[in-house]
C-alpha cells in the first residue's frame, strides 16, 4: 500500500465532532440505559451491540468495548466518525422519546476504537487454512469487511484494487472534518494485522486481469468496486478549466493539494450529500463565496438536513430551483449561466441569469459501473449488480456488496454487506457447495 503524501489540503480541517476525553466518555457511558432489544442496535446497519460496548466503557473494560464494536464492524473507528448517526443509532435512542438528549453513540464508539488502534490491541486471529480462496474486486469498505471476515474463517483472500491506495471512498472521499485519510489508513493497517490479506494495487479488472483468469485462480469472487466517475453535465463550456466533478476534486483535495487561493466564487451543483460535503469543504479551505445550485427546493434536497444546517452556519448560500445551462469563459471558467425552474422542474422562460464563478463542482451523482462485470454474465439493473441473499449474484461463484449493489449508500452499509457476503460464502464452502 502506498503511503499518503504529507502535504494534503485536507490537513487544515479540524474534527467537526471532537473526540471525547476519558472523563467525558465515562460520564456519557454511565447515562446509557443498557436497553434490552435496543432500538439503537436495530438502527445500526452492522448491528453493533451498542448497549454492551457502552457498558464496558463504564466499567473500565475499554478493550472489551472495542472488541464488541469490531466484532460487528471492522471499520468501527471510521464509522464512529462518519456515520450519519442522527438518522441511524442516535436518532433511535430511546432518550429521544423522553425529550432528553440521546446518547452520543458515535463519540463513545470513537473513544473505544481509537483507544484500541492507538494501543495496538488486536482481537482477531485468522482461522486455520481451509484452502479456499476468494478474489475481491475493489479495495473499499465492502471488500475490506469481506476480506477480514473471510480471514477469520481461514479462507485465503486477494484484493485487486485499481488505485494505489486502499479504502475506497472511505480513504479518498469522506469530508476531512469527519475523517481524514491518515486516520482511515491507520484503521486499515490495524485490520490488516489479522495477516494473510493479499493486496494487489494498480490492477484494474478486467482490463489488467480477466474474469477468466480470476475465476481460474479463486473459488469465489466478491465485487466491491463501488461507483464510477462523477456524472457529467453535457453543457456548453463543460470542458473549461474550473469545471470539475465533485468526487474527483474531493479526492485530489484529500490525497494531495488543491489550490483555491484564486477562487473568489465557487459553485457546487447538486443537492445530495456529496454536494453538502463539497460546499463545507470549500468554505473550510477559505473560499469566500460558496453557493449551492440545486434544481429542486430546499425541502426536496436528498442531502441530510443536519448537514445543510451546518453548511448554512458556515456561510454557504443557495440558489434553489436553478439549473446551469452553460459554463462561460475563455481560458477558464468565469461565469455560469443558469435558468430558474418551476415546480415541475421546467425552465421558466426569460429567467436566465449569469453568476460569476471560477470553480464549479458537479455533484449530481456517480456513474454505475456494473457493466464492467458484464463479461461474467451476471444480472444488472441500470448498472447496479443484482444480488440475492448473502450478496450472491446470478453467477453462483460471484458475490457483491456495497455501492456497486446499492447505487450509493454509506460506509456502514458496505461493511455490513461485505461481512454478510463473507458469512454466506463461508457457509457454502463448508457445505461443499462452492
Amino acid at each position: 500500500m502506498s503511503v499518503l503524501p504529507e502535504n494534503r489540503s485536507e490537513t487544515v480541517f479540524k474534527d467537526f465532532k471532537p473526540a471525547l476525553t476519558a472523563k467525558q466518555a465515562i460520564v456519557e457511558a454511565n447515562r446509557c440505559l443498557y436497553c434490552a432489544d435496543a432500538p439503537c442496535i436495530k438502527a445500526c446497519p452492522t448491528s453493533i451491540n451498542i448497549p454492551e460496548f457502552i457498558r464496558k466503557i463504564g466499567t473500565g473494560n475499554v478493550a472489551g468495548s472495542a472488541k464488541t464494536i469490531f466484532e460487528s464492524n471492522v471499520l468501527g473507528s471510521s464509522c464512529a466518525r462518519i456515520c450519519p448517526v442522527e438518522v441511524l443509532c442516535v436518532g433511535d435512542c430511546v432518550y429521544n422519546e423522553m425529550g432528553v438528549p440521546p446518547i452520543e453513540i458515535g463519540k463513545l464508539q470513537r473513544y473505544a476504537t481509537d483507544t484500541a488502534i492507538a494501543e495496538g490491541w488486536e482481537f482477531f486471529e485468522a482461522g486455520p487454512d481451509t484452502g479456499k480462496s476468494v478474489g475481491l474486486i475493489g479495495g473499499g469498505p465492502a471488500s475490506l469487511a469481506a476480506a477480514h471476515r473471510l480471514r477469520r474463517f481461514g479462507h485465503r483472500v486477494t484484493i485487486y484494487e485499481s488505485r494505489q491506495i486502499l479504502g475506497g471512498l472511505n480513504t479518498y472521499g469522506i469530508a476531512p472534518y469527519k475523517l481524514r485519510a491518515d486516520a482511515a489508513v491507520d484503521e486499515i493497517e490495524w485490520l490488516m494485522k489479522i495477516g494473510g490479506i493479499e493486496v494487489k494495487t494498480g490492477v484494474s479488472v478486467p482490463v489488467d486481469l480477466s474474469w477468466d483468469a480470476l475465476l481460474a485462480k479463486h473459488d469465489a469472487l466478491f465485487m466491491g468496486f463501488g461507483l464510477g466517475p462523477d456524472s457529467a453535465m453535457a453543457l456548453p463550456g463543460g470542458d473549461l478549466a474550473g469545471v470539475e466533478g465533485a468526487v474527483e476534486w474531493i479526492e485530489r483535495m484529500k490525497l494531495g493539494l488543491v489550490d483555491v487561493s484564486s477562487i473568489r466564487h465557487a459553485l457546487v451543483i447538486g443537492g445530495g450529500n456529496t454536494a453538502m460535503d463539497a460546499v463545507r469543504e470549500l468554505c473550510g479551505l477559505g473560499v469566500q463565496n460558496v453557493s449551492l445550485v440545486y434544481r429542486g427546493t430546499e425541502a426536496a434536497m436528498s442531502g441530510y438536513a443536519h448537514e445543510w444546517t451546518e453548511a448554512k452556519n458556515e456561510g454557504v448560500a443557495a440558489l434553489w430551483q436553478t439549473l446551469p445551462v452553460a459554463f462561460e469563459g475563455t481560458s477558464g471558467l468565469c461565469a455560469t449561466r443558469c435558468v430558474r425552474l418551476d415546480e415541475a422542474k421546467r425552465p421558466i422562460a426569460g429567467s436566465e441569469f449569469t453568476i460569476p464563478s471560477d470553480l464549479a463542482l458537479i455533484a449530481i451523482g456517480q456513474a454505475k459501473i456494473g457493466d464492467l462485470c458484464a463479461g461474467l454474465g451476471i444480472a444488472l439493473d441500470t448498472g447496479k449488480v443484482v444480488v440475492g441473499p448473502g450478496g450472491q449474484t446470478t453467477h453462483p461463484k460471484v458475490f457483491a456488496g456495497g455501492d456497486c449493489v446499492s447505487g450509493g449508500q454509506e460506509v456502514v452499509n458496505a461493511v455490513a454487506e461485505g461481512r454478510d457476503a463473507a458469512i454466506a460464502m463461508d457457509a457454502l464452502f463448508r457445505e461443499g457447495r462452492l
Partner: protein
Amino acid sequence: MLSPTKPGFKKPDLTSNTGGIISPNPFWLASAPPANSGGQIMRAFDAGWGGAVWKTLGQPIQNVSSRFGAVGWNGRNGVGFNNIELITDRPLETNFREIYEVKKRYPNHAVIVSLMVETREEWKEIIQRSEDAGADGLELNFGCPHGMCERGMGSAVGQEPKINERITGWAKEFAKVPVLVKLTPNVGDIRPHGLAAKRGGADGVSLINTIKSIIGVDIDTFVPQPIVGNLSTNGGYCGVAVRPIALHMCASLAREPDFRLPISGIGGIANWRDAVEFMLLGSSSVQVCTEVMLKGYRIVEDMIQGLEGWMMDKGFTKLDDFVGKSIPHYSEWGDLDLNYETVAKINPVSCIGCQLCMVACDDGAHQCIHPNADAAIRVPVVDESECVGCNLCQIVCPVQGCITMEPVANGFPTASWNDHVEHGKVLRPKKGAH
C-alpha cells in the same frame, strides 16, 4: 488501561473452587428470582454464568403482591433494593426435575441447591432429593430476614450460633456434596456465626443475605413500601448500596485465624470490579442477584472479560493468585500509622470551579479550602498547613482525578496508637484541632 485479549495471549484460568464446588468461572447467580427455574438458569449458563444457587427450596410458600421496593439516586434506579418475597413458591417435584435437566445439559457448570426446612427429618429428605437430582453442592439458607424467620427458619437460625451449628451438623451428616452455609448480616459481629458453621462441619460460607430494612414510606397514603393493601412489612436490603457492609463481613471472616474456610461473596456486586474487590478480600466465588434482576444475565460477558483483562494486566494466571490478597492490608485501627499524613491538592487545569470542595470543607470538615485571592479565578486554594487529609473534598469533586491526596514527608517515623501507648513512640502534632 486494561490489556485486551490478544491472539496468542494465554488467557488466565478462571476455574473457581469454593469448598469443593468447581465452576468454570467464579460468577454465580445468587439464590433469588434469577435462579428460580431451570429455563432461566440454562439461559444464564448460555450467557456465561459459571454457577447458580437455586432459589431456596423448602415447603413452597405463598407470596404477596407487591413485593419489591428500591431507592434510586441521580437518575439511577435500584441503587438499593428491598424485597419481601419468601422462598420458592413452586412445587418441589418441579424444581427437582428441572435441576436434573439443567445438570444433564450443563455437567460442567455448578448447580448449588439452596435449602430451608425445619426438622432433622425434613433436612435429611430434602438433601437426599437434591443430591438425587444432581446438585453439585448445597447452600443452607440461614439468612432470610423476613417471613421465614418468624417461622423459626432463615435468619432465626443464622442469628443463633448453636442452632446454626446443629443444623449444619445435620446437613453434613446427610450430604455427600459440599455444604455452604449462607449467613445473615443481621448480626453485630459475623465471626461467631461463621465459626459456628465451621464447627458444624461446613465446607464454606456464603455471605451476605439481605439486611433488614424499610425501603420507604408513601407520604401521601402513609403506608410504608412495598405496599400490600394498606400495610407493608420490613424486608431485605441488597443491591450496590450494601456492598461495603458485605465486603466488611467477608473480610472479617477471611482474616479470622480460626476460620479459614472458603467464602462465596455476595452483596451489591454489579460488575467485574466489584467482583475483584470481593475476591481480594477472600471470596473464591461471587454471587449476584440485584444487578441481574435490574440488567439481565447479559452483564456476565463484561464481568468475565473485565476480570480476564485485569488478571492479565496484573500477571495473574489463576484465581488463587489473588484471592485474599488484600487481607494483609486490612488491620485494626490501633495499628494504623498516625504519623502518615496526606493533604489535598487541586489540579488547576482540570478544576471546573464548582467549589463543592470548598463548601464541603467549610461546613463538613476543617475550613481549609479558600477562594482564590484573585476573584477572577474560581479554582480554590487548599491551606495545606490546616488540611487534615480527610478525603471529603476529593469525594465531592465531580471531576475524576482533579483532587488528589498527596502524602507529606513530615519527617516523623511510623507510629501507631499501639506503638505510642506501648513503646512511647512520638506522634506528630495534631492538625486542625484548635
